[in-house]
C-alpha cells in the first residue's frame, strides 16, 4: 500500500457517520471499541429500556421464589377454592385479585402470576444456553470455513445448506420423542434432561445462521489490509487467526448472539406450545398458551403468558438492535 498516512480507505464514504466514526474513533487514544460502543449504547434510550427489561426479567427469573413469595403463591400449588366446579373455570371469570395478580388457571386454580414468573426461568435458561451452543458451533464452523477456504469451506457451506434445508420444527418435534428413548441410559433425568434436550435441539439446528454470518465476516476480514499487513511481516496462520481475525469477530458474534436469544425464546415457546419440552407441572409459557387454547372464553389465561413472551422477545430485540447500532454503526443506516 502506498498510503502515506493512516488512510483507511473509507474516505470516499461521504456519509457523515463514516467520517465522524473514522476520524473520531482514532482521535481519542486509549478508548477501546467497547468503550465507544458503551457510550453510544448509553445514549440509546430505547436500547437501554430494552436492557432494563432484560435485566429485570433475568432477576425475576433468578429470584423467582422470592418474587413469588412476595406477590403470589407457589407455582404448582392448587387453589381449587378459586374454581367453579361445574365449569372448571375461575370463579368470577379470571380470579384476578390482589392475592392473585394475574388470576388463576382453570381446573386447578394455580396462580398464573407465579407460573408466568417461573416460566421465565425455563424460557431464559433454554434461550441462553441454546444461543451459547449455536454461537460456539457457528463461530467455530464459520471461522474455519472462512479462514481456510477451499474444500473445507465448500464442505462446511454444504453442511450449513443441509441443515437449513431441514424442516426445523418437524425435526425438533420428532427428535424430542426419539431422544427421549435414550432416557433410561442417561444419568440425568427430569427437567434437567428436558432442558438439555431443548438446548441441544434449538442450539444445534440454529448454528448455520450464525455460521454463515461469521464465515462471511471472516472471509472479508481475511482480505482486509491489516491481515495483509500482518502476513507481509511474516505473521503465521494461528497468529493471524487469533490476534487479527478473532478480535474483530467479537462484535458481530456479540450482536448476533444478542439477536439470537429472542428468536430462541420464541423457538422454545413454540416447542412447548406444540407439547414437547418440559414436563408438567413445571410452568412454561408455551405450555400455558397451549393449555389456554381450550379455555379461550377466559382469555386472561392466554394473555399473560403470551404477553410475557412478547415483552421478553421485544426487550431482547430492542437491546440487540441497539447493541448492533452501537458496535457497528454503519449497519444502522
Amino acid at each position, binding site marked *: 500500500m502506498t498510503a502515506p498516512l493512516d488512510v483507511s480507505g473509507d474516505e470516499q464514504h461521504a456519509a457523515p457517520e463514516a467520517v465522524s466514526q473514522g476520524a473520531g474513533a482514532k482521535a481519542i487514544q486509549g478508548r477501546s471499541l467497547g468503550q465507544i460502543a458503551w457510550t453510544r449504547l448509553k445514549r440509546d434510550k430505547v436500547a437501554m429500556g430494552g436492557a432494563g427489561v432484560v435485566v429485570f426479567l433475568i432477576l425475576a427469573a433468578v429470584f423467582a421464589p422470592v418474587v413469588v413469595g412476595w406477590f403470589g403463591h407457589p407455582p404448582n400449588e392448587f387453589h381449587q377454592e378459586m374454581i367453579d366446579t361445574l365449569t372448571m*373455570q375461575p370463579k368470577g371469570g379470571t380470579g384476578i385479585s390482589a392475592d392473585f395478580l394475574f388470576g388463576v388457571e382453570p381446573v386447578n386454580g394455580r396462580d398464573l402470576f407465579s407460573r408466568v414468573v417461573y416460566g421465565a426461568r425455563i424460557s431464559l435458561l433454554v434461550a441462553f444456553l441454546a444461543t451459547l451452543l449455536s454461537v460456539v458451533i457457528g463461530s467455530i464452523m464459520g471461522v474455519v470455513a472462512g479462514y481456510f477456504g477451499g474444500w473445507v469451506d465448500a464442505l462446511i457451506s454444504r453442511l450449513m445448506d443441509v441443515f437449513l434445508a431441514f424442516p426445523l420444527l418437524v425435526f425438533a418435534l420428532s427428535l424430542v420423542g426419539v431422544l427421549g428413548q435414550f432416557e433410561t441410559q442417561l444419568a440425568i433425568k427430569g427437567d434437567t434432561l428436558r432442558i438439555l434436550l431443548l438446548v441441544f435441539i434449538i442450539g444445534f439446528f440454529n448454528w448455520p445462521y450464525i455460521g454463515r454470518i461469521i464465515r462471511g465476516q471472516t472471509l472479508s476480514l481475511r482480505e482486509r489490509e491489516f491481515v495483509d499487513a500482518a502476513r507481509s511481516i511474516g505473521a503465521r496462520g494461528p497468529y493471524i487467526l487469533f490476534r487479527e481475525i478473532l478480535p474483530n469477530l467479537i462484535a458481530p458474534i456479540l450482536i448476533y448472539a444478542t439477536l439470537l436469544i429472542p428468536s430462541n425464546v420464541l423457538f422454545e415457546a413454540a416447542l412447548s406450545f406444540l407439547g414437547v419440552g418440559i414436563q408438567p407441572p413445571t410452568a412454561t409459557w408455551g405450555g400455558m398458551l397451549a393449555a389456554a387454547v381450550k379455555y379461550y372464553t377466559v382469555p386472561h389465561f392466554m394473555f399473560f403468558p403470551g404477553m410475557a413472551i412478547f415483552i421478553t422477545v421485544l426487550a431482547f430485540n430492542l437491546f440487540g438492535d441497539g447493541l448492533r447500532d452501537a458496535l457497528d454503526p454503519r449497519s444502522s443506516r
Partner: protein
Amino acid sequence: MRKRYATPALVATGVALCLGLSACGGGGGGGQSADSGGAAGQGDAAGFNAALEKVVNPSDKKGGTLKMAITEAWDSIDPGDTYYALSWNFSRIYGRPLVTYNPAPGAEGRKLVPDLAESLGEASDGGKTWTYKIRPGVKFEDGTIITSKDVKYAVLRQLDKDTFVNGPTYFGDYLDLPKDFKSVYKTPDVNTDSAIETPDDQTIVFHLKKPYAGFDNFAATPATVPVPKDKDSGIKYRQHPIASGPYMFEKVEEGKQYTLVRNPNWDPATDPIRKALPDRYELQLGVEANDLDNRIMSGDLHIDLAGTGVQAAATATVQNDPELKARADNPTAARTWYISLLSDTPPFDNVECRKAVIYAADRVGLQNAYGGQLAGEIASGLMPPSIGGWQKLDLYPTGTGDVAKAKEALAACGKPDGFETTMTFRSDRPKEQAAAESMQQALAKAGIKLTLKGFPTSEYFPSYAGKPAYTKKNNIGIATNGWAADWNDGFGFFSQIVDSRVIREAGNYNLGVKSPEIDALIDKANLEQDAATRDAIWGEVDRKVMEGAYVLPAVWAKGLTLRGKGLTNVFVTGAYDMYDYLNLGVE
C-alpha cells in the same frame, strides 16, 4: 384402548335387569343432583337432562337435512373395521346388523331387538350354537337381495386383522374356525362351515368353541352388517360400504365429509325399528372443536357425532345460558378413568404402599382434573355402575385425601417417611396431565414424591406405561389409565385390564393387577352359565381389585352434550350413552 374419543358400546346382557338404576339411566346421581335442579323432571319436551329418560321433540315428519360433525375422522365407516361407539351407533343408518338395540331412551335402549334377523338369536347346544333367520326381501342399495351368505362373508372378512386392524376380535376368539383358515382373502377356498353355516339363504348358524350366553351382543356389532362379496375391496371397501339400511353413501371424502341420501331399495316394511326421517345426512369431519360447539349452539349443526360432550370453553357458556342449558344433557358413560398402581415397581409390591396412595389422593381434585362434576362422578370402584354386578364399594374415603390414614399405611409398608416414584400420563391429554399434577400435589402431603412424565398416546402402552421392561427400569409406579366396556357385563369390561395372564412384553393395558385370586375369579365367571351369578362374580372381581389396591379409580366419565336446534326424536340411548342416531329427524 382403541376408543380414543368415542364412548364404547355398552350393552345389556339379554334382558338382565340393570342394577343400580340411578346410575344406569340418568347419569350418576351425585353429579346430576348438584346442578340439574330438577330440570330433568319437568314436563316440557326440552330441559336439562330431558333426553336421558324420554324422547325430546317426538315427531314423524320426514324431510330435511340432518347435519352432523366431528372434530376428527373416526377409524373407518367400514362396518367390519370400526371400534368406536359413535360408529356402532351411526353405522345403523346405512347398515343393518342381525340384531340391534331398542331405539328408546335410557335403560330401555339397552334391550336387544331383531334387525336384519327376524328374531333374536336362538341358542342350542348349551349356548355353543346360535341360529338367526334373515328377514326376506331386504335388499342392498343396488337392489340385490341380502342373503345369509352376505352376513357370513361380512363376519369372516373382518377376522383378517392384518387388513382390518380396528375392529374387536370377539368373533375370532369364539368361532370354531378350521385351523387352515387364515382370511377370506388368503384362503378363500377353505370350508368354514364349522364356524358359520348357511343352510339356506335365510338361515345363518354360528358355532362357538365355548358357550357364550350373550352372543346376541356379538350379533349386534356392525361386524354382522352384510357385505356383498363381489363388492368387497378389502381396506378400500371403506370408500363406499354398500348400504343395507335406509341411507346410502352419496359422497365419501375420507377425513373431510360424508353425505348420505335415501336408499331407494330400502323397504320400510322389512324394518320395524327405523323411521328414516331426514332426506339427507351431511357429516363434516375434522371440524375445529370449539367451532363445532359454537355451531351446535347457533343452530348451524344438529349434533356432535362423537357424543362425548362439549369442550371446556362451551361448558361455561352452556351453564350460563338457560336456553342452551335446556338443550343439554349430562349422561354417564360406561367408562372409568383411573390410575394404575404398578405392583411390580417397588415399593408398590407392598399393598400398604398402594393403599397409602389411594388414601392420600385427592379424589375431588381428580374429579376436577377430569373436568369436574359435569365430566365425571367420583368412582368408588373400577367397574362403572352400568355394568351388571356393580355394587357400591366403600373401601376408601372419596374426599380430598386422608393424610393420616395414608401415613398409617406408609408406616405399615415400612416407609413412614414416604418414598419417591414416577407417574406417567398421556401428554396429549390435558385431563390426564391435570390428574397427574393433582396426584403430585396430594401425595406430597403424605410424603410421597412424584416425578411426572408424559408420553404421547400412540406410544403410551406400546413403549412406555404398557411395557413392563420400561416401567421397571424407570421406577414407574403410577400411571394414568382409562377403560370402557364393549359390553356392559364384567367380561366386556374386565378381561383386558385385571387378568394377569394377558400381560405381554409390551402394549399392555393391565399395568399391575397381578393376583391369582382375581385370575381364578375370572375363570370362574367365564364358566358360569347363570347370568346373575356371573354378574355377582364380576362384582367380586371389582371388590378384590379395590381390596388389593391395584388401581385408584378416579371418575366414571360423563359428558355435557348438546341437542341441536330443530332436532326431533332426540334421546340418550342406554346402549351407547349418547344420542341414539337411528331415528333422529329435523323440523
